[in-house]
């Protein structure tokens, strides 16, 4: 299922397993595909695995873009 959402890492263990938080929901996650992931990072999770690290700078840029577009409506 493509139900992949951006969630914040709250725990990473040496085993590669850990927890992300999505709007107050804790999800057991496997971080092996993102060895650089650390607590506080945002990741895209899918079927219990983190598959991509969210680029916070790009996220902010996108949000700014949309705020601009809302204003120019």
């Amino acid at each position: 299922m493509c139900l992949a959402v951006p969630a914040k890492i709250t725990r990473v263990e040496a085993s590669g397993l850990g927890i992300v938080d999505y709007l107050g929901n804790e999800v057991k996650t496997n971080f092996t595909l993102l060895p650089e992931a650390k607590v506080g990072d945002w990741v895209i999770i899918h079927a219990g695995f983190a598959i991509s690290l969210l680029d916070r700078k790009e996220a902010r840029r996108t949000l700014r873009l949309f705020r601009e577009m809302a204003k120019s409506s």
Partner: protein
Amino acid sequence: MKRISLELGGGGRLMRDFIAEHVLPTFGNPILSELADSGLLPGGIALTTDSYVVDPLFFSGGDIGRLAVNGTVNDLVVSGAAPRYLSLALILEEGLEWDLLEKVLKSIRAAARRAGVRIVTGDTKVVPQGQGDKIFINTAGVGKSVGRPAVARIRPGDKLILSGTLGDHSLAVLMARGDFGITSRVRSDCAPLLFLLPLWKKGALWMRDVTRGGLATVLSELAERIPYPVLIEEGRIPVSKTVRGASELLGIDPLYMACEGKAVVVAPRRQAEDFLRRIRRHPLGRRAAIIGEVQDKVGRPGELLLATVSGGLRLLEPLTSELLPRIC
């Protein structure tokens, strides 16, 4: 040979078709044909019944006993009746632990006290092990009419008020089933809706508690009974952050998730703000909101429409079957 499917009990279209095609023709009389949540009897008495098969028996914020009281109490409230008496019928599975049964009975007692109703008659059956599932409960409720739904008086401009957040009960039961790698801090909203009763005397036109099938199913029922389309706004519908998140993770739509302590009230246009204020005064109504209206500008009669947060417009269909079996 035709067989009963699980979906038939889901509170959605299949169940309604069943009632329309089999129940009504078999028993049809003017009281039943109203298809209100309670039968409104001569002499100002309302009678309702409900059976409770929730799995698991205990979940955050409630249990089968509490449901069995509040569910029936609420069916009376939304039919314009002040709840007075309940019957309590238990079907127990052989081998059930005493402690479990005692907990459920105590919960029923507490809920009945809170709702101001008395258990005045009942029945107990025990079925051999394997032929039931721990406990099934049926409660019938009797109440005194203090008002009467008046669907025929609903007009364009009349507003829809939702008494609080959607989906809390569904998510609590789901979490209690322990199926997922997801943990949500959520509590069932199982509670009596007595605080809505005074609205009947003030002119409330229609009420329904939002149970199986969720808000979309309940409002579809309304739309089918009036000659005007119903329009609700996605941005105004209260949903808690946790339920929103869990529903996105699980791919379930909050508009179809069952509640056990929330209702939709149709308020005459001029009284909507006043009704909202009254509801919000009560602790259980703090997140109440006007979510839409009956109108005749957009859509066709019989339609339930959703104005999305993105500026789109779409039809909301009733659920054909509940998302999760044994939710209440």
